[in-house]
């Protein structure tokens, strides 16, 4: 059994690390498709990337129910670390979670398993935090939407391969929808519900 003393650490400087992490995520959300680096360092439980850990320490607390993909949910260190550092309740019902952490793309449920919010309160939706292989190289995704001057190209290696096809549901549902934060190590890219895939290629 792991004791708290053996748990990976949180932020050394909670206040300033949370601020810089938030600014990276905010800039990412404001400029979809652009890559932002999370500089703050904390310990990471197994299977959780540095960027994901920093986002958790910055945005999660007892007001944000979390859903973990089965592989993470089965790693007791992940749950212990999250609970100890963020106090966020971990839920098994994905439709009520504020954030969902996905480390293993194969375990990403259909998006309608999460909350899209309502037309009156579209903000009451799940934000998906999806760990991917790379946000620097891979396929080219040409994106458009608010936050993008014309179009922008994201080069990334993302699983599931059909992520953007699945996210097309955002266009139909708007203002309801799912916002996604992609994490690869310390790099983050946001794909809010307003972002559209224009083209995809090598």
């Amino acid at each position, binding site marked *: 059994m792991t004791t708290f003393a053996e748990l990976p650490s949180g932020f050394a400087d909670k206040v300033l690390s*949370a*601020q810089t992490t938030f600014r990276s995520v905010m800039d990412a959300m*404001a400029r979809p498709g652009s890559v932002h680096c999370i500089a703050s360092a904390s310990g990471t439980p197994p299977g959780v990337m540095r960027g994901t850990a920093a986002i958790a320490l910055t945005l999660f607390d007892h007001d*944000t129910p979390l859903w973990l993909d089965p592989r993470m949910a089965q790693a007791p260190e992940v749950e212990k670390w999250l609970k100890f550092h963020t106090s966020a309740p971990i839920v098994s019902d994905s439709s009520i979670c504020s954030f969902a952490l996905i480390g293993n793309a194969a375990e990403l449920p259909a998006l309608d398993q999460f909350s899209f919010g309502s037309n009156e309160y579209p903000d009451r939706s799940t934000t998906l935090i999806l760990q991917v292989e790379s946000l620097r190289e891979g396929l080219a995704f040409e994106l458009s939407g608010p936050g993008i001057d014309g179009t922008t190209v994201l080069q990334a290696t993302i699983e599931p391969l059909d992520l953007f096809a699945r996210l097309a549901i955002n266009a139909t549902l708007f203002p309801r929808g799912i916002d996604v934060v992609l994490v690869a190590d310390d790099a983050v890219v946001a794909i809010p519900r307003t972002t559209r895939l224009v083209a995809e290629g090598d």
Partner: protein
Amino acid sequence: MNAPTYNFAYLDEQTKRMIRRAILKAIAIPGYQVPFASREMPMPYGWGTGGVQVTAAILGRDDVLKVIDQGSDDTTNAISIRKFFAKTAGVATTTSTTDATVIQTRHRIPEGALHAGQVLVYQVPIPEPLRFLEPRETETRRMHALGEYGLMHVKLYEDIARFGHIATAYAYPVKVNARYVMDPSPTPKFDNPKMDNCAALQLFGAGREKRIYAIPPHTSVVSLDFEDHPFTRYRFDAPCALCGAGDSYLDEIVTDDKGSRMFVCSDTDYCETRQSQGHRGSESAAPHKERAHG
């Protein structure tokens, strides 16, 4: 006694997390007002508590903060808010629009174009653009949900029928990303076009009404109008008496009790920068008579 101690940028971390989550949703749903559990701040509601909470939630050690009220860095409330952050967050402050990374504003958008990487934080008194047409939150929320904005067009058209013009001079409603009708805060409608396709991120905080909303960079912002009555900007037709600018929004300064007045830039940084570049107006020493009409 419980001696007060305060966190970096005043707000406690739990409050910041809550506001930060609201900001992310606001950016993801441009123009939609995200409810948030606004806190009592050490300045009165209505004096910028929403803007202050947003600024406090985003501000970091490396930021350079500018605060304006009525376009000016020197108005008393702007000074008060700037001092609050200089004291609680120890951040650098500036009056330069170009140098600032975060600009908190009340009632104006700076004249010069904002650049990527900047955040403009608006103080908002009544975030609901439909509030004066329908006082009930339950109703206005439904109207936004359905994108049902006919009432707003009816109101604007009634103005035209009565006055020959749309009689809204400030807080002129806009449509964001072709979906949400949004209150731009009580900026003069002269400023509305600056919101469209702006390179900076625009965040809006309404403390008393507990709402945060946003316009991401490069987002379409259209002032509501009619084909036969297109949106027009208003500016007094005169150059600035101090810097000669012919494109800036002007303050009217009454200089005596005989009707003399002069017009100067409302954006003091814009005006001072122009003056330092050698631009001159009809000059400040002798106030000139107002022209026949504007």
